[in-house]
């Protein structure tokens, strides 16, 4: 709505080769995805394991090359960038990974891990970098910074390592921050702090945030009024502001997801019933069902349509897109 489009994916398809020498298969992990993120907004991507959300993050981060379609960052195709423009793109898109135990180089001190990227992009010069790193460490709650600067990752707890990751990503002042399940491997009582930190820093640095998770409740906390994309088996099935989806989920898979998610409230969660599914079997990503990928389980299955034609996203109300034949018959 008037905001500049920061990231735009146009019919992006990603294929991976899987299997052994004897049975090499090509798996289509993302199938003609259209996706965009506007400057300054928060977008969440939710889905179960294997739905392709992490691959989507990697495509946007520019480390997975699509087999088809284009990935635009600030209007330019990222795979055609060279020299200065490429360097600028790299600096502008940063990521926080899920596993704090493997996302930091075990052989580097925290200072090395943080200072090298800062020096690489000339954010500050050699004389000021130590101060800058100390400031970043304080900002992410690692106080006093001297206690952490020259330690190695294995000397820090998971939560502390995750804060280092956040510091590393944000010290480059990126335009887009991709957070891939940043708290799923952290204890429940400590998650809030990390979430609050990401939230505050995002506001402070005016960074656009793309938050990937399978936990809808966490997303609701951090996304506020942002948009949410629901993914299933490599496709985006529904996309809308998060409140709209929670109050009025349109896609049968979204409805299934919400009804199946346990909630920390016994009365509420025990009255939730699963919709009557056609099958409890989950198709494999290497052999997806034809047409709409959800049709094998969908309670609203229309024979002849859902198993033949792939539904394209349709805007059914303000900013609310659904890819489902129930709504394409217009």
């Amino acid at each position: 709505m008037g905001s500049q489009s920061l990231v735009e994916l146009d019919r992006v398809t990603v294929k991976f080769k899987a299997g052994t020498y004897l049975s090499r298969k090509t798996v289509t992990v993302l199938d003609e995805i259209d996706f965009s993120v506007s400057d300054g907004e928060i977008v969440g991507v939710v889905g179960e394991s294997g739905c392709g959300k992490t691959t989507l993050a990697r495509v946007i981060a520019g480390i997975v090359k699509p087999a088809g379609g284009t990935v635009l960052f600030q209007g330019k195709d990222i795979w055609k960038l060279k020299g200065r423009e490429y360097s600028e793109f790299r600096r502008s898109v940063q990521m926080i990974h899920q596993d704090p135990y493997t996302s930091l180089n075990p052989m580097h001190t925290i200072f090395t891990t943080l200072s090298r990227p800062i020096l690489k992009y000339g954010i500050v010069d050699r004389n000021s970098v130590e101060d800058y790193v100390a400031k970043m460490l304080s900002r992410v709650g690692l106080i006093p910074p001297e206690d952490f600067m020259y330690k190695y990752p294995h000397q820090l707890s998971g939560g502390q390592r995750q804060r280092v990751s956040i510091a590393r990503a944000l010290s480059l002042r990126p335009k887009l921050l991709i957070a891939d399940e940043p708290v799923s491997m952290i204890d429940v009582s400590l998650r809030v702090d990390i979430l609050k930190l990401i939230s505050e820093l995002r506001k402070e640095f005016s960074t656009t945030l793309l938050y990937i998770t399978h936990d809808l409740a966490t997303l609701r906390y951090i996304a506020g009024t942002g948009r949410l994309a629901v993914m299933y088996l490599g496709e985006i099935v529904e996309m809308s502001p998060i409140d709209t989806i929670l109050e009025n989920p349109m896609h049968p898979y979204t409805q299934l997801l919400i009804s199946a998610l346990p909630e920390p409230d016994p009365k509420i969660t025990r009255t939730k019933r699963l919709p009557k599914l056609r099958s409890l079997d989950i198709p494999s990503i290497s052999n997806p069902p034809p047409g709409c990928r959800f049709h094998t389980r969908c309670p609203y299955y229309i024979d002849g349509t859902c198993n033949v034609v792939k539904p394209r996203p349709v805007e059914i109300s303000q900013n609310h897109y659904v890819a489902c034949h129930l709504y394409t018959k217009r």
Partner: protein
Amino acid sequence: MNYLNKAHFKGRITRSAKEFLQILRRNKSGTVGLAILLLFIVLGTVGPMVVPKPVSDPSKIYLPLSWEHPFGTDFEGKDVFAQIVHGTPIVLQIAFLTGLLTILIAIVLGSISGFKGGLLDTVIMFAADIILTIPFIPLFMVLATIIKFSDARAIALLLAAFSWPSIARAIRSQILALRETTFIEAAKIIGYSTIEIIFREMLPNIAPFIAVSFIFASINAIYAQVGLAFLGIVPYIGENWGIMINRAYTYGAIFYSKSFWYNMAPILMIILLQTGLILFSRLLEDVLNPRVREE
């Protein structure tokens, strides 16, 4: 720069020195290895300056051990200990030079192979496989008829050419494993170039392996050169210990009881040096791995 200043850096250096001493204390076998190695280095650098060059003296053939002749004398009356001392520099030179060249070649080829993959990987690994099948002693014998081996460097280079394949393979598989790690993915997203990633992010993780490979490449080089010298393929380059064994064999020293020390001295030295190197490699592993340092 208030709380962070030069003092902090100095603190780091003294801390590292303290950590190093801690490692020495904990890793006793490694410290022994270090001591032996230092002994040989001193022997090889200072020794030849202090110990006179061995001269043949027919009146002193196969003398027993004494202070003047700690290892006795050989069939020509030359002092055995002096021969050892004057042979040490060349042994060490070839050993470490070969070790160094081997790992340099292995790092470059192994990393490119592992990181880039594709055609380059296939070609390099194919070359490695071919080299692994070539028996090096017969090859050296053939080469010896064409090339004059008078230079330690030439020998080192040639030995390195035979030793790099297995180490390169090992480095390649470690690089392959590292490539899939999250912190390498993070490095790519930060925007480091391929060279930066290989050398600053990946290699430090295999530094212990590289250091140990260096030691073992050196150990192999010692065996190789001694073996070649013993077989007479590599002509007389100074007083290489292998030459001593060769001469002992050729001049029938193995049939005399009096020449026992002439036979044993080089062998003992080789064993001692190799043991020292192996023990030292254990120390290197600890020093290079920050995780071990902490407790």
